C-alpha cells in the first residue's frame, strides 16, 4: 500500500497505523498514550498530523486533480490522531506543516497545565517521555499563572509501586495494561475531567505483573518503590541481560549504581517476553546487596571458619582431596548455573574421575521435549492444555497464553521495531477462553481465564494423562480413571477432541507433572496421542541447558540428594541441603565439604571450606530457556568482593591440582561449547537463538526415582524465590511472606488462623511460613512454595511439629 509521509514514499502493509507509517519513514511524531503491544486509543491527542487521501468516484476511478492530473488529495477537515488512523492507498501524511507544529505545541502546553514539573525530585527525570516531548515539541514557556491542581504525591498503590497523582497525564496506559495484558482489571480512572485520578478498589495490586506499569507510564506517576530516590537515570549503568529468575529467560535491563543493583526493568525480546516481566523478576534482586554476603573464601581451622585467599583455599581443598580417590567426590550445581559453569563442573569431575556430578533442583522427567513448542507457538496456538501453575512457575507463559486467547498474532516488526499502534488490538477484546484448559491440584490463577478447568487429586498427574490418553484412544474409562480427570468426562472428551483437531495445539507441562518420571512419560505419550507440541517448564533458569549439556550423574545413586550420602567429599554450589537436620547430621560425617554460596547458609556453617559466589546478576554466560533458546547473560557492575562463579572455582582448584582445566573461565568454557554444539556463544545476539543442534545421542538421564506419591503438603512453584524472600523486603511485603495455603476446614482442625506465622517440618526440612486460609486449595491438602532443595511435588509434613509463632489478627475493615 503506497503511502506518502512528508514527501517520502513508502510501501506498507494494509492495516498499518499512520503513526507507524511516520516512524517507518524515519520521521517522528510525539505520542504518550500509544504503547507497543497494547491497543491504540487516541487518548492523549499528542500524535496529531495532517492526513489526506485520494477518493474514488462512483465508477471506481480516482478523482483527479484538474491541474496536475494526479489523484486529488482530500484532506481531513481536522488534524488526525495518527495512532488511531489506518493507512489507506495513496494516503498523504504531513507532520511538518505550521498547523501541525502549532497543534503539537498546544498539546504539550495542555498536557503540562496540571503537571507539577518537579523533575528534579522525580525518579523518571532524564528518561521521561513527557520531559523529552516537552523539550522537543513544546514552546519552552508557560502562560499559565494560576495554581495547579493539587493531589496526593505519595500514594502507595502496593508495596512495590508508588503513585504520584499530580504527575499523571491520564494516558491510560496503566489501566489498559492490566485489562489487556494479564487480563485482570485492577486499575481504573476515578472521577472526571481534571479531577480524574488512577485508583483501585483492591488492597494492593493483585497481579503478578504489576511492576510493568512503572516501565510504561510515560511520566513519573507510577514508580518502582524499591528503587525510590536511589539514583537518577543517567547515573545508572544499564546492563541488557537475561533474567535468571525462571525458565523463560526474559530480557531485562539491570540498573546498577556504585556497585549496587538498584532496579531491574523489562527489556524487549519480541520472541520471549515482549516487553513484560513478572514481579518476581523485577523486584527479586534486593538480596544481592544484603550486608551479610560472603566476600572472602574461608577455611575451617581449629573449628572456626577463617578468611583466607583463593589460592590458599584451593590449595587446602587440593591437599584434602589427595587422600581420597577422585571418584569419591560429589559436585552439585544449582540449576540456574550458566552453561559455562556446567562445562567447568564437568571438567573438574573429569579431572577427578568422578561420575558424581549433578544439578538441582532437577525434575525426575526429562526436560527435552520430542516436539518442542516455542513461546511464539504458544502465543499463536488454537488449543492449549496447561497442567500446573504456570503463573507462578514462569509468569511469561501466563502472558503468552493470554496473547493466544486474544487470537491476535504477534505483530510483524517494522523498520523502527515493534509497531507503536497495532490497530488489531482493542480494549476489552473478546477472549477465546474456550481454547484454554487448565489442570492443577488446586485452584490456580490461570483457571479464571480458562474455558475449562480440571482439579485433579494432588500427585495424580500420571493418572490424569493416562486417562486422557485412554480417551484419545477412544476407550471407555474406568471409575478410577474418571476420578483422575478432576472434571467431568464430557469436558475431558471435549479437551481431547479440541487438542486433536487443533492445527497448532500446545501442551504446557509444569513442575507437578515433571516431578515424577511416570507422569512426565504419560504427558509425553498424551502429547503424541493427540499430536500437539510440548512446552516443558523446568524448575529454574537453566534447567534445560544443564540437562542438554549433560551435567548429570553417571548412576542413579549419585544423583542429588543421594550423592550427599554416597560421596566422601562434596563440592556444593548455591544449595543448602542442611536445611534438613537429618541431612545436616550426615553432612558432618563427610570428610570434606566445600560450599560455594553467597551467604553463610546452614550448609556453609558445616563446611570445611566456604567459597564466596557471584549472584546471577554478576556472571557472564549463557542460559537455555524452556524453548531451547540460547540466551546471553551479562554481568552487571556489582560490588561482590572476591566472589567468583563456578568457572572461577574450577580455575583455582585446577591450578592447585596442577592443571589448567577447560572451563577455567567463561572464554575457555565457550571454546568447549563451540566444539560440542558448533555454536559460538560469544556472538550470541541479545534476543538469543534456537539453534538446530546436530543430532546427537539423547543424553542418558539418570534420575533419582521420584518419592512414592502421597503426602499432605504439595510443594508448589512460586513467583517469588523463597530462599531469598526475607532478603527481598519489598517483594516479601508484597507477597506476604512464604505462604502455607490451607483450606478453611483444615485451618480449623490445625488451630491456625489466616496470617499466623508458623514453623513446621515438611519432608524433613524445617519451613517457616505464613498461613493463608483459602478455598483455592482442597481440603486435606496444603501448599507451600518450593525451595531449590525442596522441589515441586507432594511431600509428607509432620503436622505434630507445627509451631504457631505469632498470631496476627487480620482486622476486617
Amino acid at each position, binding site marked *: 500500500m503506497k503511502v506518502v509521509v512528508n514527501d517520502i514514499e513508502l510501501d506498507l502493509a494494509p492495516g498499518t497505523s499512520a503513526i507507524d507509517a511516520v516512524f517507518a519513514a524515519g520521521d517522528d511524531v510525539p505520542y504518550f498514550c500509544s504503547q507497543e503491544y497494547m491497543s491504540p486509543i487516541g487518548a492523549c491527542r499528542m500524535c496529531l498530523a495532517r492526513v489526506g487521501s485520494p477518493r474514488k468516484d462512483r465508477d471506481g476511478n480516482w478523482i483527479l486533480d484538474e491541474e496536475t492530473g494526479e489523484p486529488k488529495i482530500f484532506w481531513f477537515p481536522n488534524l488526525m490522531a495518527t495512532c488511531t488512523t489506518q493507512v489507506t492507498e495513496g494516503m498523504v501524511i504531513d507532520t511538518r506543516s505550521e498547523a501541525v507544529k502549532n497543534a503539537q505545541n498546544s498539546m504539550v502546553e495542555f498536557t503540562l497545565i496540571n503537571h507539577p514539573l*518537579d523533575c*528534579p*525530585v522525580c525518579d523518571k*527525570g532524564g528518561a521521561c517521555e513527557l520531559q523529552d516531548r516537552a523539550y522537543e515539541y513544546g514552546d519552552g514557556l508557560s502562560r499559565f499563572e494560576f495554581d495547579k491542581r493539587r493531589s496526593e*504525591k*505519595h500514594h502507595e498503590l502496593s508495596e512495590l509501586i508508588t503513585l504520584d497523582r499530580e504527575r499523571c497525564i491520564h494516558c491510560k496506559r496503566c489501566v489498559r495494561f492490566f485489562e489487556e495484558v494479564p487480563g485482570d482489571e485492577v486499575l481504573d480512572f476515578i472521577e472526571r475531567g481534571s479531577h480524574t485520578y488512577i485508583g483501585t478498589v483492591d488492597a494492593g495490586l493483585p497481579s503478578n505483573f504489576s511492576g510493568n506499569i512503572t516501565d510504561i507510564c510515560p511520566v513519573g506517576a507510577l514508580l518502582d518503590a524499591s528503587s*525510590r*530516590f*536511589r*539514583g*537518577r537515570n*543517567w*547515573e545508572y549503568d544499564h546492563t541488557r541481560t537475561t533474567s535468571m529468575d525462571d525458565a523463560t529467560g526474559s530480557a531485562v535491563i539491570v540498573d546498577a549504581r556504585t556497585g549496587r543493583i538498584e532496579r531491574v526493568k523489562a527489556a524487549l525480546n519480541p520472541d520471549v517476553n515482549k516487553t513484560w516481566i513478572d514481579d518476581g523478576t523485577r523486584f527479586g534482586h534486593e538480596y544481592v546487596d544484603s550486608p551479610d554476603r560472603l566476600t572472602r573464601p574461608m577455611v575451617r581451622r581449629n573449628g572456626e571458619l577463617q578468611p583466607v585467599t583463593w589460592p590458599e583455599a584451593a590449595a587446602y581443598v587440593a591437599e584434602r582431596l589427595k587422600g581420597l580417590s577422585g571418584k569419591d567426590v560429589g559436585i552439585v550445581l544449582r540449576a540456574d548455573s550458566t552453561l559455562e559453569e556446567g562445562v567447568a563442573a564437568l571438567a573438574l569431575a573429569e579431572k577427578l574421575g568422578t561420575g558424581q556430578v549433578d544439578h538441582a533442583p532437577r525434575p525426575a522427567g526429562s526436560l527435552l521435549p520430542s516436539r518442542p513448542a516455542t513461546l511464539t507457538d504458544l502465543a499463536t496456538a488454537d488449543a492449549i492444555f496447561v497442567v500446573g501453575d504456570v503463573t507462578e512457575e514462569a509468569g511469561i507463559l501466563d502472558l503468552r497464553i493470554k496473547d493466544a486467547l486474544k487470537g491476535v498474532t504477534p505483530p510483524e516488526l517494522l523498520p523502527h521495531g515493534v509497531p507503536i499502534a497495532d490497530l488489531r488490538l482493542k480494549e476489552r477484546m473478546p477472549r477465546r477462553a474456550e481454547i484454554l484448559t487448565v489442570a492443577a491440584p488446586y485452584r490456580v490463577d490461570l483457571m479464571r481465564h480458562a474455558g475449562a478447568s480440571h482439579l485433579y487429586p494432588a500427585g495424580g498427574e500420571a493418572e490424569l494423562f493416562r486417562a486422557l490418553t485412554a480417551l484419545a484412544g477412544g476407550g471407555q474409562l474406568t471409575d478410577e480413571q474418571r476420578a483422575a480427570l478432576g472434571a467431568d468426562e464430557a469436558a475431558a472428551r471435549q479437551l481431547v477432541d479440541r487438542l486433536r483437531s487443533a492445527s497448532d495445539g500446545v501442551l504446557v507441562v509444569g513442575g507437578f507433572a515433571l516431578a515424577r518420571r511416570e507422569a512426565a512419560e504419560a504427558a509425553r505419550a498424551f502429547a503424541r496421542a493427540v499430536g500437539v507440541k510440548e512446552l516443558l517448564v523446568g524448575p529454574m533458569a537453566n534447567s534445560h541447558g544443564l540437562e542438554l549439556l549433560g551435567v548429570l550423574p553417571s548412576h542413579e545413586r549419585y544423583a542429588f540428594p543421594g550423592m550427599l550420602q554416597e560421596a566422601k567429599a562434596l563440592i556444593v554450589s548455591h544449595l543448602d541441603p542442611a536445611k534438613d537436620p537429618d541431612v545436616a547430621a550426615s553432612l558432618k560425617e563427610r570428610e570434606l565439604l566445600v560450599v560455594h554460596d553467597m551467604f553463610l547458609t546452614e550448609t556453609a556453617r558445616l563446611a570445611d571450606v566456604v567459597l564466596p559466589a557471584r549472584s546471577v546478576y554478576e556472571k557472564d554466560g549463557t542460559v537455555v530457556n524452556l524453548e531451547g533458546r540460547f540466551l546471553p547473560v551479562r554481568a552487571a557492575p556489582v560490588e561482590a568482593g572476591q566472589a567468583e562463579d563456578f568457572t572461577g572455582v574450577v580455575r583455582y582448584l585446577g591450578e592447585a591440582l596442577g592443571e589448567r582445566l577447560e572451563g577455567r573461565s567463561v572464554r575457555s568454557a565457550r571454546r568447549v561449547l563451540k566444539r560440542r554444539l558448533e555454536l559460538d556463544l560469544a556472538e550470541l545476539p541479545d534476543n538469543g537463538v534456537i539453534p538446530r543442534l546436530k543430532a546427537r545421542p539423547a543424553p542418558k538421564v539418570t534420575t533419582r526415582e521420584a518419592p512414592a506419591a502421597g503426602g499432605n503438603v504439595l510443594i508448589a512453584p512460586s513467583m517469588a524465590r523463597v530462599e531469598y524472600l526475607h532478603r527481598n523486603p519489598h517483594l516479601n511485603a508484597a507477597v506476604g511472606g512464604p505462604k502455607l495455603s490451607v483450606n478453611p476446614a483444615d485451618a480449623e482442625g490445625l488451630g491456625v488462623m489466616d496470617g499466623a506465622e508458623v514453623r513446621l517440618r515438611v519432608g524433613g526440612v524445617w519451613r517457616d511460613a505464613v498461613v493463608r486460609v483459602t478455598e483455592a486449595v482442597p481440603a486435606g491438602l496444603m501448599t507451600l512454595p518450593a525451595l531449590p532443595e525442596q522441589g515441586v511435588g507432594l511431600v509428607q509434613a509432620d503436622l505434630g511439629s507445627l509451631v504457631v509463632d505469632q498470631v496476627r489478627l487480620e482486622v476486617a475493615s
Partner: protein
Amino acid sequence: MSVLDIAKGMGVTLGHLFKRPYTVSYPEQRVDIEPRFRGRHHLLRHPDTGLEKCIGCSLCAAACPAYAIYVEAAENDPDDPVSAGERYAKIYEINMLRCIFCGFCEEACPTGAVVLGHEFELADFRYQDFVYGKEDMLVGTTGSKWQRREAAAKGKEVRIGVEPAPRPELEGVDY
C-alpha cells in the same frame, strides 16, 4: 629626554612611596575578596524553616565537569523532614581535589542549595580529607576541615583568612 620627564617619572615613584601599601600580611590579616569569588561550597538552609534547601536531585553532579560531586538521595520522614518535600540528600560529597571551582554546580541547582563561598584555604594532608560531606558544608560550618581540626585541637574559634564581601546568594552564611 628632558629633566622635566625625569622629574615626572620620579614623581610617580614618589607618589607611590607615600600611598598605603597594598600588601596584606596574610595570614595574620584577613584578605579582601570580591563578591563573586568562587571558593569552598556551602549547602544552604531555608532561613525560615531551617530545612535544607538541597533536595538530592544530583543535577549539580550531572553538571560538574570534574565529576567531583556524589549525591545519594533518600526519602524524608514526613514527621521529621530534612528538606522541604519528599526527597533529601542522604549523602552529599564534593571532592575538593577534583573541583575546579567553576561554579557550574551552583548554576545547575534548582533550589539554590549549593553556593560557592569565599573560603579558599583548603590545603590538607590526606586525600580522604579533601572529600567534604554535608557536615563540612552545611551553613553554620566555618572553615576547611583542617582549619576546624586545628581550632578544635587548640580549643579556639576557627579563623578564616578572608574578609568576605556580602553576596545575596550566600543566604544565611555568616563568616
